[in-house]
């Protein structure tokens, strides 16, 4: 009987070993291999001493932070308004629907919209501003990244807002809280879990985005993701690519600990 138990779990354990644990080990080992093929900490040393790597990391961080803040500011009110609607599930579906469109197609749409003769520049032209370089700018990258991530922020916030018992709000009103106080003292704290998981599902992916940076940001905006892709697929320096990958994972774990730990 013991043996039979083992047999049925075998494919899953095999998967865990081969596709979760082994790749993790391999990328860590790879990050410790220098250009000469020897075990070394050189990659980490050059990462932390090189101005370009460090400033790229800081930039990548700042972009991810800006995108996260923008999506949060836009999404929270949307989620809040949605909970009040009669057919909230239907409107939620409308919000989620665009996420089913391939991200690359959406990015592609912005190539058209932001182009020199695109609709945005045509619109700006009405006010005599005109045609400016929008594509391949920081603005374009932040705009498109936020655009793509908004539904992923609305969804968890909506879900946490919806679980708030309506009686709590009545109770707060009954106890004399103003609408503003009800929000800051009751609604916001109770929806914090949704906000946290929203932040988690946006911050790290934004750090590691690379197709949007390539399509919209040009090669000017370099995120950690672009750097990894470049090292692996263009310059073929896997050691350095893995080093950046390991650092990205450390940042990821730290930011998850941070958002989870403050509960």
């Amino acid at each position: 009987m013991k043996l039979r138990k083992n047999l049925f779990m075998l494919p899953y354990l095999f998967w865990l070993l081969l596709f979760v644990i082994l790749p993790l080990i391999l990328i860590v080992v790879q990050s410790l291999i220098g250009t000469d093929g020897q075990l070394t900490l050189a990659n980490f040393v050059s990462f932390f001493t090189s101005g370009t790597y460090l400033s790229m990391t800081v930039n990548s961080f700042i972009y991810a932070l800006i995108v996260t803040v923008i999506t949060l500011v836009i999404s929270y009110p949307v989620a809040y308004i949605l909970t009040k609607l009669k057919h909230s599930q239907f409107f939620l579906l409308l919000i989620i629907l665009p996420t089913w469109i391939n991200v690359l197609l959406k990015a592609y749409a912005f190539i058209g919209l932001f182009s020199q003769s695109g609709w945005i520049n045509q619109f700006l032209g009405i006010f005599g501003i005109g045609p400016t370089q929008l594509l391949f700018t920081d603005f374009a990258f932040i705009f498109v990244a936020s655009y793509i991530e908004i539904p992923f922020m609305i969804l968890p916030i909506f879900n946490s807002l919806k679980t708030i018992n309506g009686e709590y709000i009545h109770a707060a009103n009954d106890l004399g809280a103003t609408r503003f106080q009800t929000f800051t003292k009751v609604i916001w704290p109770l929806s914090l879990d949704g906000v946290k998981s929203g932040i988690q599902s946006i911050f790290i992916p934004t750090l590691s985005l690379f197709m949007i940076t390539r399509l919209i940001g040009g090669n000017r905006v370099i995120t950690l993701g672009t750097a990894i892709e470049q090292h692996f697929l263009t310059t073929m320096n896997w050691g350095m690519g893995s080093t950046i990958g390991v650092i990205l994972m450390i940042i990821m774990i730290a930011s998850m600990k941070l958002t989870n730990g403050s509960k």
Partner: protein
Amino acid sequence: MKKKSKFELIYLTLVMIVLYFPIFYLIYFSFSSGDSMSYFESFTFDHYQALLNDPRLIRIVLDTILLALLASLFATMIGTLGALYIHQVKKKSVRNSLLSLNNILLVSPDVIIGASFLILFTFAGFSLGFYSVLLSHIAFCVPIVVLMILPKLKEINPTLIDAAYDLGASKYKVLSAIILPLITPGILSGFFMALTYSLDDFAVTFFLTGQGFTTLSVEIFSRARRGISLEINALSTLMFLFSLLLVIGYYFLSRYNQNRKINNQKKKVTK
């Protein structure tokens, strides 16, 4: 709480417009006879025709669908076994560490998955192509399947299992006659999620396609890098309609289920 102000509705409408604007922009220009997304020239189905006459693109679409179906099928099988395994682990600490390991591929950035799998396949001497992409898609679809099934397993009342044994069922029968039918909704939604994950993936595939094999996402990326081609617009219209159909179907299915539940409750009350 239930009061809606005009301002709120305007805001919501605005966000909706922004969300849908790029999509409809793409669709709009798919009918334009020009070759840019700046000025609409005249109405035409030319780009759709070109799409249908592009055997390479059609092959890529079919490959992508085949890849997604195969990947989600295998991922669903492995994930179902995994969920059953994790569910029966009694020790909480072991269970939690299994769950953490399970979720690694869910929370890891695509780039890391792509890069580490590239190292893995190279290390193993596995040549890049359809099979490396298939294996990697199976790999990153497994954890979501596990996560969709586990809650369904938790929902099963343990006395149902006792009852089945009590009535003479063997271990295998308990699994096939009680547990599997009860977690079928979870298995289906796991399969469905895996399908979307696979269809949507760009980054991991991009790392692992090598020469010769490509998926729709990678193809769109390389075409978009080359500039605007309204054939892509036509393609996105079709993909949008496809997702719309799925969403509408899903919406009515869930509404139908809810109504049935309500009707059942009504029946009970009137009895």
